[in-house]
């Protein structure tokens, strides 16, 4: 399995936010996306998940069979952990995780209990999700990646709200995922300790789209 981007560009409204990004990740590879606030890290990650359309370039998840070059199809093999945790406050932690496990239809993930142990929250399974603190909620959200097994993790500021020990736990989980042949793409300000991760530095662009052409805001 390879996850490849070939000079992709993404627009947000009339603004070009991501310009000519390319990477190629094989099994066990990790990519950290860095850059200042507003540099387009989240936009890039959402585009990788097919949540934003590409303005140019191609994405390819080689080795998943039919639809491997259409993000709208291959995204079922991706896990996206965005800024929000995608959990329902009214349901218990166990109900939330069981739903994502069953709905994603992928087998081979961890048991819910094992996943909660992995983030050191073995005692919260039956609590309503809304009772948890910010950091605990984030750790439960991380469990979603564990209970249903998907080869590619795309995580956006995964450690926001986590204390240093929990961040270290998450780094360990990412390393384990890579060692298992998975791919991790993380946007982060803090180093995730992923060892030989590739780094992609995003730069804020000043390019606007007008009519059919792009012009550079700095030169105009």
């Amino acid at each position, binding site marked *: 399995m390879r996850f490849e981007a070939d000079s992709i560009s993404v627009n947000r409204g009339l603004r070009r936010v991501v310009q000519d990004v390319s990477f190629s990740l094989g099994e066990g590879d990790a990519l950290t996306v860095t850059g200042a606030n507003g540099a387009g890290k989240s936009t890039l990650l959402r585009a990788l998940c097919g*949540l934003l359309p590409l303005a140019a370039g191609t994405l390819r998840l080689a080795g998943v069979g039919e639809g491997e070059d259409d993000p709208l199809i291959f995204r*079922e093999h991706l896990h996206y952990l965005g800024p929000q945790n*995608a959990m329902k406050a009214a349901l218990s932690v166990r*109900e939330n995780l069981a*739903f994502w496990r069953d709905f994603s239809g992928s087998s081979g993930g961890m048991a819910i209990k094992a996943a909660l142990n992995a983030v050191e929250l073995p005692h919260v399974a039956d609590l309503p999700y809304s009772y948890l603190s910010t950091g605990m909620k984030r750790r439960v959200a991380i469990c979603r990646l564990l209970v249903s097994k998907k080869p590619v993790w795309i995580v956006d500021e995964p450690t926001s709200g986590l204390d240093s020990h929990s961040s270290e736990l998450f780094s360990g989980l990412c390393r384990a995922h890579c060692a298992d042949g998975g791919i991790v793409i993380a946007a982060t300000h803090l180093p995730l300790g992923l060892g030989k991760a590739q780094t992609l530095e995003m730069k804020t662009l000043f390019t606007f789209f007008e009519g059919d052409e792009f012009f550079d805001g700095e030169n105009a």
Partner: protein
Amino acid sequence: MGALLSREIRVALRAGSGALMGVLFFLAVVTVFPFAIGPDLNQLGRIGPAILWIGALLASLLGLDRLFAMEREDGALDALVMQPHPLMAVILVKCLAHWLVSGLPLILATPLFGIMLNVSPLGIAAVMATLAAGTPAITFIGAAAAAVASALPRGGLLIAVLTLPLVIPVLIFGITATNGALYDPDPFTAPFLILLALTLFAGVLGPLAASLMLRHSAE
């Protein structure tokens, strides 16, 4: 998909009990009509089915604002669309769950409210049948409006404004079929079948429109 259905129903029943809210609103609408019209029982009995229909129509618009806005707010929408299920099917299941917890209770409450309005037993049965056939269409059309409104911060009222004009045919054929059951020369079957057709039509078009909307507003 079974997992989604049970999750939707559990969330709806637990968080603020949307089902009960709809029935209470229905009760409120039904209660104020006699104050406006006066205590003439014959007149109430004659227009009762229409009052029941309007009450149920307005009540079934409640809660639609949460259908997608909540999913977008807590980030679940992204994860929902990234699963190996067609988005239209996801929306269809969400509509079904929404109808089960907020449409079905309205129909079950109709006999009680019908008695309050002096509607005959036959009239109550006709209203229940037409509501059962017609309220799913309101949910399906409302889902498309909810998808539009979910991209906006305060979209709740917009849903009612977008949905009401589109469900007028449902209201017309619902009332026509009810009157057909009650008054002899009018037909019941023909408008009832058209009502069913409207529901089927909305069942395809509503989720399709909603899925297009959600896909294009995934910013």
